[in-house]
């Protein structure tokens, strides 16, 4: 079990090779087979992982390019493990959601490998390699298999994220020249006293911030997201929102917050304001959307805004926060990462199902579905309620903890952010009214209800939502020690 | 290091380079290009990297320049650059030059003379290539092979079309 992480990274790549070599109609099956394999590995990783031990575990370290401080260093802590598990969950879900050919499957598998790499790499060069490696398949997937406006959306997505990445790379070069290492752990320890000085520190901060803020995305760098998510095929949207957006949040936790604590403290209120803007404006914009997919995309921005609020509250507040509040906010953020991953992916899946049946996905193209497809409506409402933070479902736990932590630290910002929670409820209430109720629309009268294959996808995910909502301890166990450790780091 | 030689080589190289970048006729430009690389090779000799200088001459003057000439012949139709030059590009190039010059001149650490060194023999280069740089060497070999095959595939006539 020594090389389990490397195996996780390599297996999807091998899968991509296999898929490219195999006949097109087998490709999805092969991809799913490889995903079963990675899922098993992910679970093994979970079992092997010692949740009570602090620090990185299962590390593998090999010399790579010693001249520039690059090494092959992978390892997991609670947060990485959580994200690896999320990837292992969402990607197969996405494969099941999408009829897909050879190229599609191969690119998705490459992206999966890049995701595993991003979440486990502990050296910047390696991390950046994976980070960028995820970008290319995503771009191609949108550009080739996307819907209307795919060229523009793909280009916009690529240019935004790539510009961000370049800025980040430059910042990291600066850091490397100042400190001579690319190792995350070492840098995080050094970060307490500041990695860079003077103007350079601000430049470094700005570069990394820009790269990650685009990826998350944080207001006002989010405008690529609705276009990209709207046009991407269902499976890709699911992975984009479920996992890829988490790369940004992960980057914030792993890089920006520990490396630039002083800068963050100084412009803390502005960062909090950006997070609040993300929450409020995105939810309001979601309300104004007529396209279901675009609506869900905006809500995705909104939900990641909560993550950002929690993170900035922990690190950006001028006062030293109480331990309980920091831990609440961090735990909430991690929980929200996981929850949003499955819930948003599920929502995209449902929108995909509706689109498959109707051919359109405008909110006005449906009506009275409850009479025709009660099962679809029922399960879909579970995902919607989970997304709007109904207690008893997974969304609530993370949001409650984030709000608990950040309210105690930055009360006024959090109080404004509550508007986001409220507007989300309006958005979903409106969507449910438009889709499910009223008289059955003519165009929907021939809809089939859920097929067996669709139920097979939906039921486990929904059960997971309930399980996390009711007894979330098993998720908390993954990252509790990491939370404690990070609290010490940020305090 | 001989400063007179330096000045001569510098003037020659830069003039040839400028000519190769700005001449209208492609063939002339290609010849100037070869001359430029001879000049650069002379710089390498001056700097004590004779082996690199030789490689430079073999590869560029012997191979690349010839290739360019062949390409010009193969694409006979426009052997002259007819498009009007893009002045925006020129402005950028001059601005970049100014920036670089400023950066070089303001850095006092660069104002140093060359130290004495022991001659870099081909034997030593060979030794290093086979020990420390053996992996990159293999990679370059692979790359060159790939480039060769790739170039062949690119220029092969598509019979179906023809």
């Amino acid at each position, binding site marked *: 079990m020594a090389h389990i992480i490397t195996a996780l990274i390599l297996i999807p790549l091998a899968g991509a090779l296999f898929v490219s070599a195999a006949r097109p109609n087998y490709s999805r099956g092969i991809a799913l087979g490889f995903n079963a394999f990675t899922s098993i590995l992910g679970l093994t990783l979970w079992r092997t992982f010692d949740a009570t031990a602090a620090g990185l575990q299962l590390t593998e370290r090999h010399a790579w390019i010693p001249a520039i401080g690059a090494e092959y260093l992978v390892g997991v802590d609670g947060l990485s493990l959580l994200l690896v598990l999320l990837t292992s969950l969402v990607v197969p879900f996405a494969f099941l959601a999408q009829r897909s050919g050879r190229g599609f499957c191969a690119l998705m598998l490459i992206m999966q490998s890049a995701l595993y790499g991003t979440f486990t790499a502990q050296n910047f060069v390696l991390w950046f390699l994976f980070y960028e490696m995820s970008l290319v398949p995503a771009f191609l997937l949108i550009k080739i298999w996307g819907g209307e406006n795919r060229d*523009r*959306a793909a*280009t*916009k997505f690529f*240019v935004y994220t790539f*510009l961000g990445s370049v800025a980040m790379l*430059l910042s990291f070069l600066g850091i490397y020249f100042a400190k001579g290492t690319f190792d995350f752990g070492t840098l995080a320890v050094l970060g307490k006293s500041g990695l860079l000085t003077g103007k350079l520190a601000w*430049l470094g901060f700005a570069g990394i911030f820009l790269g990650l803020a685009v990826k998350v995305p944080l207001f*006002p*760098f989010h*405008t*690529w997201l609705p276009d990209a998510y709207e046009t991407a095929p269902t499976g890709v949207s699911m992975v984009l929102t479920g996992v890829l957006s988490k790369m940004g949040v992960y980057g914030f936790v792993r890089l920006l917050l520990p490396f630039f604590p002083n800068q963050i403290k100084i412009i803390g209120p502005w960062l909090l304001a950006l997070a609040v803007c993300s929450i*409020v*404006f995105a939810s*309001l*914009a979601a*309300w*104004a959307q007529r396209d279901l997919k675009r609506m869900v995309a905006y809500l995705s921005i909104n939900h990641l805004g909560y993550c950002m609020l929690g993170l900035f509250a922990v690190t950006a507040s001028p006062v030293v926060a109480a*331990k309980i509040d920091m*831990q609440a906010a961090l735990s909430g953020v991690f*929980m929200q990462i996981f929850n949003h991953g499955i819930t948003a992916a599920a929502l995209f899946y449902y929108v995909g199902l509706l689109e498959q049946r109707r051919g359109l996905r405008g909110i006005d193209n449906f009506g*009275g579905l*409850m*009479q025709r497809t009660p099962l679809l409506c029922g399960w879909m409402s579970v995902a919607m309620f989970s997304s709007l933070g*109904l*207690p*008893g479902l997974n969304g609530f736990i993370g949001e409650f*903890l984030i709000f*608990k932590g950040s*309210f*105690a630290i930055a*009360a006024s910002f959090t109080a404004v952010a*509550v508007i986001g929670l*409220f*507007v989300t*409820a*309006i958005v979903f*209430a*409106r969507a449910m009214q438009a889709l*499910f*109720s*009223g008289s*059955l629309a003519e165009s929907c009268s021939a809809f089939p209800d859920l097929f067996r294959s669709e139920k097979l996808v939906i039921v486990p995910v929904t059960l997971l939502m309930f399980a996390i909502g009711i007894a979330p*301890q098993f998720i*908390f166990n993954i990252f509790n020690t990491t*939370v*404690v450790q990070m*609290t010490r780091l940020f305090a | 290091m001989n400063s007179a030689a330096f000045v001569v080589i510098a003037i020659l190289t830069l003039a040839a380079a400028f000519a190769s970048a700005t001449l209208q006729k492609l063939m002339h430009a290609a010849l100037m290009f070869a001359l430029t690389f001879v000049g650069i090779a002379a710089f390498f000799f001056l700097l004590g990297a004779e082996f690199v200088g030789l490689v430079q001459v073999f590869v560029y003057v012997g191979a690349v320049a010839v290739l360019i000439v062949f390409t010009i012949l193969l694409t006979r139709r426009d052997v002259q650059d007819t498009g009007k030059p*893009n*002045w*925006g*590009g020129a*402005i*950028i*190039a001059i*601005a970049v030059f100014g*920036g*670089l010059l*400023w*950066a070089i001149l303001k850095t006092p650490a660069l104002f140093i003379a060359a130290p004495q060194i022991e001659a870099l023999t081909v034997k030593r280069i060979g030794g290093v290539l086979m020990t420390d740089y053996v992996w990159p060497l293999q990679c370059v070999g692979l790359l060159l092979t790939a480039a060769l095959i790739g170039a062949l595939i690119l220029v092969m006539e598509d019979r179906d079309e023809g």
Partner: protein
Amino acid sequence: MTRGIVTNLWLIPAVPLAASLIILSLANSRRSAGAVLAIIGQVAALALSILAFSLTLQTPGFRAIHNFTWFTFGEQTLRIGWVLDPLAAAMLVMIALVGLCIFIFSIGYMADDKNFTRFFTYLSFFSGAMLGVVIANSLLLLFVCWELVGLASYLLIGFWIEKPSAAAAAKKAFITTRIGDMGFFLGILWLYGRSGTLLFYNDGSGCLENAGLVALGASATFVALLIFCGAVGKSGQFPLHVWLPDAMEGPTPVSALIHAATMVAAGVFLVARVYPLFSFGAINGVTPSLTVVVSIGVITALMASLIALGQFDIKRILAYSTVSQLGLMMVSLGVGGVAAGMMHLIAHGFFKALLFLGAGSVIHGCHQEHDIRKMGGLRRLMPITFLTYAIGMMALSGVPFFFSGGWTKEEILHATAHWHASHLPHYLMLAGVVLTALYMTRQMIYIFFGNRRAASEDAHESPPVMTMPLIVLASCSIVLSAILTPAWPWLHGYLTGESAHFDIAVLIQPTLFVSLALVAGGIALGFAIYRRVAGADPLEHAQPALFRFLENKMWLDELYDRTVVAYSRMAARLSDWMDRNVWDGLVRAVSGIGQIFGILTDNFDERGINAGIDEATTGTRGIGRVMSAWHSGQIQTYLRAVGVSVLVLLVLYAWLT
């Protein structure tokens, strides 16, 4: 024994919830199985509630808690738990009993509905969640159940989902209550931040116990007010009351159970539960937060009873009456009469459920007719309904001696009279008594007296499955008065933890005569005005403007539509517009590289200026378009960008050194 019951208190909500899940998995056609399961669940909950109730009888001021860790985050634990005390126990029994009656009634009322099993799924789910609210010993658990109750309410209001008005009403209810809930949520956060715990009682360290309250200090007022926001939303208090009358779009048993007897009373229960937060630091029983509660309660009570005078929908009248009664309860809590308020809540639960079920019976008999102007003379046709409805009406109007509502209302008036801050609420509540009697008399006359009108021509009495619950509830409304009288204020003593003594002398008090006179006056006035009613409303003749004002619910819905709703929609559209046009452009402006690049491109006009202007004028989506234009596919364009980037780097370098 005691421990065992308290530890397993969760079974009370769990049984109906489990029943709900099982019914959900049943096929739509297995109607009887669904109904039987729901009723078994409810009977079990009732039995367990009575068991728990009997436990609380052992000692006065009984309180037992069971706390446990829900989850651990970081090194912290979040603990929740349940509590059994007189407040919870009394509510448990009331909810379970009223619920059971309504479940049985629904079998008859919903007999023809095609989604019969789904209805019982929702009802059982509601019942479980509501019982959960009552036993929660943690504000968080209470909030969880509170939201689930809201969900059940949403589902049940919109139960007839093919009716657009029902769906709209469900949405309105969900969103309006959510406004209050956001305040509630903030209150929870604040409370948690200050006191470090959300447990109500925890052997001295809970947030309602001394240590927690001291830790809260001055912020207790704000926390209390924020929590009160939740109560305002859920209990239909002004200004968030607008959803409750619309909620009558749901089936009548739902209106009876959720929007009269139980859920809407949860707000009152909540205030009673966290009363120590409200009364912390009280001087003579007056705190700023309690004063707010009183003011809101008074406004709500009077406004709703006035509006009730101008309504013609049988259920809407009752809905406004509920709003007004809830206001009354809030007043009672605000002036310090917690026990009185809770007693009224319990009594109200029974008689209001009775009235709604009676209304349901009437509607059922009149073929789904809701307009009271089309009824009339039903007294003969539906005698059982008439009698039970009359009992409910008497109880609601506050006729003393035999009807539970009379005594509890009496007690509330008593409490308001002794409020130190002001006597205004007392007088206003006295006016409210008259109004209540007036609108109930009006309704009675319209429905049961006079000549038969369109809808009552061939009305019929409802089947026993519907009338039996009416009789049970009616008898409850009467029997309950035995433990409410000041002569033997058993319930009062039970709730406050004092023992009750039988003392016939205090039965007759001077104020009793005042309210008796007022009620009698109200009823008499009602008879005088509406005696000869036939179609048009006498008030409409006398005061057309005033009547229109009341009939249109004081135009509050319209006001909200034109202001709050309109502004929020505008904000949404504005956000969308900003997103498409401004933020996109802002990012582009920030990435000034692009601008320099545009200037240096030879076809600058085309790409730099035109694109910019196009953007501003036609409002296409910013950067993507420009980026796309730059993305010309021409190598040199790209290389030029690289050149500019090098320049930028150089400038950066110059700036840094």
